[in-house]
């Protein structure tokens, strides 16, 4: 490690403001390990299949953003219902919805 070039790009592009550069860093170390900082975060399990798929914090954040937005309430509830579902289950969900839609359309066309 020790590859950081102090360009500040990570801070600039970080959309959540989680990364900030501060004057609190080490300019020189005797032991390479001291250049590391480790952080452990809890993972959330998918409400459908039970697999762990994303950090709890990230999901909370997405939920908070959704609430902050001034989208119509229906959109918010619909999207909110999907928050705790992993991408794979979402995809399956979408596919089955599409199949249903197709079926319905076919029925209507008849």
């Amino acid at each position, binding site marked *: 490690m020790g590859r950081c*070039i102090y360009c*500040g790009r990570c801070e600039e592009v970080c959309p959540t403001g989680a990364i900030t550069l501060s004057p609190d860093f080490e300019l020189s170390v005797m032991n390479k390990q001291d250049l590391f900082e480790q952080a452990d975060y809890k993972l959330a399990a998918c409400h459908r299949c039970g697999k762990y798929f994303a950090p709890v914090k990230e999901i909370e954040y997405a939920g908070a953003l959704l609430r902050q937005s001034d989208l119509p309430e229906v959109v918010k509830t619909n999207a909110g219902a999907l928050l705790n579902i992993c991408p794979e289950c979402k995809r399956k969900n979408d596919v089955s919805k599409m199949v249903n839609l197709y079926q319905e359309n076919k029925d209507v066309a008849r």
Partner: protein
Amino acid sequence: MTLLMEEKPKVGTKYVAALRARFGAAILEESWQAPDQVTVTVPLNSLPDVVAMLYYEQGGWLATVAANDERPLNGQFAIYYVLSVEGTNEGSQAPENAYVLVRAQIPPHQPEFPSVTPKVPAAIWYEREVRDMFGIQPIGMPDERRLVLPDDWPDGLYPLRKDTMDYRYRPEPVVEDENYEFINVEGEGVVQVPLGPLHMTSDEPGHFRLYVDGEHIIDADYRLFYVHRGMEKLAESRLNYDQVTFLADRICGICGYAHNVAYSSSIERALEIDVPLRAQYIRTILLEVERLHSHLLNLGLACHFVGFDTGFMNFFRVREKAMKMAEMLTGSRKTYGVNLIGGVRRDILKEQRTLITQVLGELKSEVADLVSILLETPNIVQRTQNIGRLEPQVARDFSPVGPTLRGSGFARDIRVIHPYAAYDRVPWHVVSKDGCDVLSRTLIRAEEFFESISLIERCLDSMPAGPILTEGFKYKPYKYALGYVEAPRGEDIHWSMLGDNQKIYRWKCRASSYNNWPPLRYMLRGNTISDAPLIVASIDPCYSCTERVTVVDVRKKKATIIPYKEMERYCIERKDSPLKKY
């Protein structure tokens, strides 16, 4: 943007017409990448003649040579000779400056091409590099040695071919010693002086060998590329095309930003992105800030080598002001990292503007004093006039760049010839001298310094309003274009071709010193060895890249290794020749 392209008339059609008139059917294809950039495809066997005609008859300068493994695209290798064709100065017509790329395809079952070097000497390093990196043989090339790859690199492994190896592959070293063969100079008694070890200010390692008769240099040879890291491969593999800007910053610690702009503009040109005007001004300002610190550095070194160390320290003291300026504008002293594809990362607000204006004022008066002290030192003219002469004819043959070329009477500056950023919007003038010697090159740097200051001031005064970033452009596969910047040492040329996966397919970057090394040999010839460090420093080769110099004495047939420190001391004091001790 497409609209804009159509509006602009094409520049350089007359060169293509001249080629067609001479070579007829040998001009297989013509395609335009920008209004002043055209690629003509020719058969392999016409390559040397076409390049030579453009070079000598149409006022061409060799900008770069890029080989490209296009087998995945069309089954062939390709080689591009990039010439900046500027016409012969006859008549009173407005100059027509265009980049003409001469392209030839090379069949993979017979990877060779006729060398252009016998006709156009400037191609020598490029062709050696193509052989190293692609395993394509230049037939008729006089120099058979490796250029770029280290001595312990296995034969037959060509890093830039698409199918040879992963970019991370590290073969076992094949030899333990460096076994680079230097030129043999025949004659009565030869003493070799390897300049070594690292001198306090010297950076890039390189190995020099001077061939001397007594105190006089009769020839020189050098082995560089000790720092070859494989950047071009890196740009094609690990990085995305928009991340390469940060790599471009790290090509050179001094003129990194120039590379950065050259790279970004090559991509912007290929993708037809309109960079906002304000961003262009900011780039211009930063490029000139970079020139300020680089020229101060070289002026400092010039003082050092003529034994005027007070001046040396003083130049470095004021140089810190230029560094401070960079830090205020970009947040970083050296590697600015401020370019994005489509614009820049930071604006210049009032706070920065006031500070810079103030620092510029300080720089102007302090450097004016220092320069006049330097020129009044009796030593300086005596030590630099008529030393390290680069004859205009040699300059013409080798396409050197920057102050090295402008010191030999050519007023050639990319900022004027192929204007980019905001250089055609603010008034300024090119500095050139015709003394052909170390003195001229030093004076050019001093004058350019003040020219840069006024450029920055003018840019600040006339900064346009508007955004500094274009976002939401489209990535288009397999487009290519050139990017060019006049760095402090001369032009940096980047040729980039996009791939189809958000990456670069091929990136060829040519740093300015690259063109200045081959003619150095001619500048050293005929001088005494005490002047060698001074001459080398005068081309400002990412500064004194001399790790070791071997002096070969033609009369005593003896190679002696003289520590570089000793050479440097001799250069400064000019007494007790190190050669006498051996």
